[in-house]
């Protein structure tokens, strides 16, 4: 659906915001891009609807190279790619309903059709009663819902979210993310979402790319990246967010392993079963149980001593993944 190949962006003045970026986003997935502030996330997502042009490389959206489109073709593309922003970008001089109608008006839809479509969109985002209000009268979460309704107005296949929840409190963030996940499921929308909040990725993304100083240092399924990060930059990023254990357990006398499991395994008494079977003792040194999108996962750092530790590690491997 979306493919970036060798994309580099050099701004006038010499700043290199993106450096040889390659990415693939499949139809219907929620693709996250994480990275620190200044990593180039906004520059990257803005390439996807031609708000920014690459200095080198190709940006393919549904087969079309965005950088080579003329103005008219770019406008057509933009109607198929919705975008929402951290600061919402609503028109303060227009009502909620008029904000949602705006892209339809710009696309030349007649007033009658527009009103029906706006009503449908406002219902979709749960703002049916707020059509006559002005943006200044809404809460942040409601403003972002208006932004979402507006982004969906022209029936896009792709939704771009630039830090869409970063201005919202945690509870509102959860609601807005739930809405985004619903849209992905119900409308089959392909979603590219950039954020510096790990929780956002954990809650809605299928795959994620880690951007650091303009380069993609790692990308893959969210579970793989979050539970078994390879790049040092990813580890540092996750550690700062309290996601990943980096503590040193060298002082522990036995063997230390990290055990990761998914889904139904979480409800089973795996450790006691393995302990009985192999005579090994377990110390839980660190760990967390959580959720990645809809799946539960657990990751424990275990200290093994006594009994048959090799057999214990093999047994653990039957219920999950063991790493050093």
């Amino acid at each position, binding site marked *: 659906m979306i493919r970036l190949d060798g994309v580099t962006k050099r701004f006038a003045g010499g700043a290199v915001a993106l450096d040889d970026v390659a990415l693939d986003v499949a139809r219907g997935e929620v693709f996250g891009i994480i990275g620190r502030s200044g990593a180039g996330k906004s520059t990257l997502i803005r390439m996807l*609807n031609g*708000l920014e042009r690459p200095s080198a490389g190709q940006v393919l959206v549904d087969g079309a190279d965005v950088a080579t489109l003329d*103005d008219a073709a*770019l*406008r*057509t*593309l*933009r*109607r198929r*790619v*919705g*975008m929402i*922003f*951290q*600061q*919402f*970008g*609503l*028109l*303060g*001089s*227009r009502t909620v309903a008029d904000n949602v109608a*705006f*892209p339809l*008006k*710009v*696309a030349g839809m007649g007033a009658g059709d527009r009103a029906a479509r706006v009503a449908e969109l406002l219902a979709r985002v749960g703002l049916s009663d707020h059509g006559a*209000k*002005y*943006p*200044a*009268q809404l809460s942040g979460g409601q403003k972002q819902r208006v*932004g979402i309704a*507006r*982004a969906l*107005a*022209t029936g896009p296949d792709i939704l*771009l979210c630039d830090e869409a929840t970063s201005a919202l409190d945690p509870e509102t963030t959860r609601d807005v993310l739930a809405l985004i996940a619903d849209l992905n499921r119900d409308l089959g929308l392909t979603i590219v979402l950039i954020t510096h909040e790990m929780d956002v990725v954990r809650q809605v993304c299928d795959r994620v790319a880690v951007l650091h100083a303009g380069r993609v240092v790692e990308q893959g399924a969210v579970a793989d990246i979050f539970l078994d990060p390879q790049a040092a930059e990813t580890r540092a990023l996750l550690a700062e967010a309290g996601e990943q254990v980096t503590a040193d357990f060298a002082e522990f006398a036995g063997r230390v392993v990290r055990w990761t499991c998914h889904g139904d395994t979480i409800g089973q008494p795996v450790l006691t079963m393995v302990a009985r079977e192999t005579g090994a003792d377990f110390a839980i040194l660190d760990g967390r149980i959580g959720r990645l999108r809809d799946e539960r996962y657990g990751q424990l750092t275990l200290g093994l001593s006594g009994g048959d530790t090799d057999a214990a590690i093999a047994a653990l491997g039957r219920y999950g993944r063991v790493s050093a």
Partner: protein
Amino acid sequence: MSGWFADIVWADIAQACLDTLAMLGGSLVLTILFGLPLGIALFLTSPGQVWANRLGNGALALAVNLLRSVPFIILLIVMIPATVLLVGTSLGVAGAIPPLVVGAAPFFARLVETALRGVDRNTVEAVQAMGATTRDLVWRALLPEAMPGIVAAATVTAVALVSFTAMAGVVGAGGLGDLAIRFGYQRFQTDVMVVTVALLLLLVQGIQMLGDRLVRRLVRG
């Protein structure tokens, strides 16, 4: 008290009022007509905007700054030939309007540019991201969003024009300013001076009140 207002010819005052209002009305309409597109062009050609163009923006800015740096009284005089060419005379209400517009339009354009710059950058991007043409961006987003600022700019410009019309009186434009100078100042008829200044004050107050009320009505939420 008997001497007070004895010099005043009320018919002259009434005529002067009409002349001032005509100069103000005519020049304000034309100032907006020329200044608004100029302000929009200044904004759109500035760095980071849709028509970003260093050379074009620099040329516009230079022209605007040049006109704004010429004192109005000088502009009145150097424009006389051009004014005669344009409206056939450099005298009266008609003769005053070209220099008034040339003096005020660049000022108004700068204020418009500032008002447009105040439109939330995210809003501009959002409108671009939904596939709007530059025309839709300007007419349906930028101008409506900046409208309170533009009305405030027109108010400030109208007040500036009131004092410009008074100065235009010096070169034979007529109006209240002319009266104040010819009778009030040159012939020491203080009462004429007081009445004309009071009328000018009333005019400025009226313009400001009207402008403020409009701005309040335009600001949403």
